[in-house]
């Protein structure tokens, strides 16, 4: 059975950025259908579909919605997570730039289902183009009666705003995002209480990723059974955007059924660039453990298969590394990132990420000591599970896999007191005058 693109079907059709153009291509049928259903039925349908969060954690979306208490006399909010700061991830930007109405429709259905009358899309401040396109699309949706006092004439009221962040990875963590939305430093909160009960402005709040919400109109329109017919099994359903970068011939966003084997994804990207061999790949962004290419070439790219392999699907940011890649140099760069982005609240993460970066740079420069590998492993142990949010554990992901899978490379750096790999030069004669 051929797979037809679902989430990216409007890419290449700029007219779909307007309500009229989007409707012409079949849009807003899901919202129209949802508005005729009971909110609880909408939640049930999304639950039945098996849709899991596409932002990283993979939490079942319908279940999350069902946690919002319906008996409280408080406003409810939807905050759409468009912070997309996981290194290697660029799929949400594509969804916002090319099909903003699809996201608005998904958000509107979610708001109707949980009884929220306000939606904020928290977008990272760097995405200026996506922000401008979204704002234009929102104005158009208000003018067309899709947003505002009576969504598509149903009497359901929905206000919809973009909210730009200012450059902080931690604001992609859901409670860090809420703090930032409220105008504060984006330092994650203690959970519980969970945002579904006490979220934005002290009120029940659903937080979903852009891609998660973009799936919703299709689930409502075509039904949970259709959605479940795509994918590996009951726990891994639906279409998935894979953001492939690094050493492949054609990096890009690829929409495929969730669970596609890595080999097939790599082939779609034209294979490893410059005719080189595959060394390793990261299946789910900077937080995921690195997998050696030879062992996992046929790995199904879904939540559970990748977890079984000791890594994670995360945001499905696939970074490919060829045979010339120094793993110490690569992981050192990721540790630099986590050190920079640690919010500083929890000591194990704040200090641990700093030491990781220092140690890895030392090894890469040829100044490593014999005990550094075990010291790195020790730091991983002390960060894991010892901080409020997942950033600390995320920082551990790549470092732990380096120590466990590529210990020979660390040893070689130390033994030879230098990096055994050539410097990263990509352009022939680059930087030459």
């Amino acid at each position, binding site marked *: 059975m051929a*797979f037809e693109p679902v989430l990216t079907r409007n890419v*290449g059709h*700029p007219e779909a950025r307007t309500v009229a153009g989007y409707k012409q291509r079949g849009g807003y049928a899901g919202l129209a259908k949802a508005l005729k259903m009971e909110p609880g039925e909408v939640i049930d349908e999304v639950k039945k579909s098996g849709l899991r969060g596409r932002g990283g954690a993979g939490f079942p979306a319908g279940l999350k919605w069902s946690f919002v208490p319906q008996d409280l006399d408080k406003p409810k909010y939807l905050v759409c997570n468009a912070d*997309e*700061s*996981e*290194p*290697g991830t*660029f799929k*949400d*930007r*594509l969804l916002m*730039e*090319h099909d903003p109405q699809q996201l608005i429709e998904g958000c509107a259905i979610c708001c109707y289902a949980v009884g929220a009358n306000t939606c904020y899309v928290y977008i990272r*401040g*760097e995405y*200026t*183009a*996506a922000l*401008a396109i979204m704002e234009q699309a929102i104005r158009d949706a208000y003018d067309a009666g899709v947003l505002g006092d009576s969504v598509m004439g149903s009497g359901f009221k929905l206000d919809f*705003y973009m909210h*730009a962040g*200012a*450059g902080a990875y931690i604001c992609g963590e859901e409670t860090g995002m809420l703090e930032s939305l409220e*105008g*504060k*430093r*984006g330092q994650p909160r203690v959970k519980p209480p969970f945002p579904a009960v006490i979220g934005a*402005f002290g009120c029940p709040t659903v937080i979903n990723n852009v891609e998660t919400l973009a799936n919703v109109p299709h689930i409502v329109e075509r039904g949970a059974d259709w959605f479940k017919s795509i994918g590996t099994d009951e726990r891994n359903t639906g279409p998935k955007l894979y*953001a*492939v*970068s*690094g050493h492949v011939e*054609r*990096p*890009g*966003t690829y*929409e*495929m059924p969730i669970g*596609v084997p890595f080999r097939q994804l790599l*082939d*779609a990207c034209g294979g490893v660039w410059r005719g080189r061999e595959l060394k390793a790949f*990261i299946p789910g962004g*900077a937080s995921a453990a690195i997998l050696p290419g030879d062992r996992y070439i046929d790995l199904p790219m879904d939540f559970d298969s990748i977890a079984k392999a000791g890594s994670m699907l995360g945001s499905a*940011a696939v*970074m490919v*590394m060829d045979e010339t890649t120094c793993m110490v*140099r690569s992981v050192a*760069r*990721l540790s630099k*990132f986590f050190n920079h*982005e640690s*919010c500083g609240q929890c000591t194990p993460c704040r200090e641990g990420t700093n030491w990781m970066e220092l140690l890895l740079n030392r090894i890469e420069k040829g100044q490593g000591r014999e005990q550094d590998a075990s010291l790195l492993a020790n730091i991983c142990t002390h960060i894991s599970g010892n901080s409020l949010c997942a950033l600390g554990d995320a920082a551990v992901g790549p470092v732990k896999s380096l120590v466990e899978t590529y210990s020979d490379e660390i040893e070689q750096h130390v033994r030879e007191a230098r990096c055994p790999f050539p*410097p*990263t030069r*990509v*352009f022939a004669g*680059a*930087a030459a*005058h």
Partner: protein
Amino acid sequence: MQDERKPAAPGGIGAPTGAVLGALEPWPATPPDEPVIDAATAHRIGELVERYPQSRAALIPALHIVQRRCGGWLPDYAIAALADHLELDPADVYGVVTFYDLFHQKPVGRHRIRVCTNLSCQLRGSAEVMEVLHEELGVGEDEVTGDGRCSYTHFECLGSCDTAPMMMVNDTYHENLTPQRVRELVKELE
């Protein structure tokens, strides 16, 4: 078996959005002589405040507006003025400013260049982009050229990994860079 999919956006996803960027307001060259929060700015902040149940939620969007007005950075007096306007403690606002990478507390060039150097870009030549910028501009990272024209800095992932290496000049993404293209882009900046 499922069919393979072609890239959703061959050739990079930045290209089709350029036209919209033209709608963005220009960056002023110098801090204004007039009050930081003039009537027009106050009006814009007021509109933002109405979007939220708590006025403080408008702080980060308001900081973006004020920073733009001050030529791309936030002098202390601007932070104080905004704090006063939103009835917040200046130290509190200062704490927010220092938390976020897009807010600057030192003068920046008229053109601000941010080079993504995270892993996907590192694998495809971001170090060479940084070297070319150093050569062309003759200043180090985070320094401003003598004529106030440019400053550059390395940045964490900018979400354009499929078009690596890339950099952001003011509000615009420049993708699939080569050393030659970086040189041309820098020369085009006035």
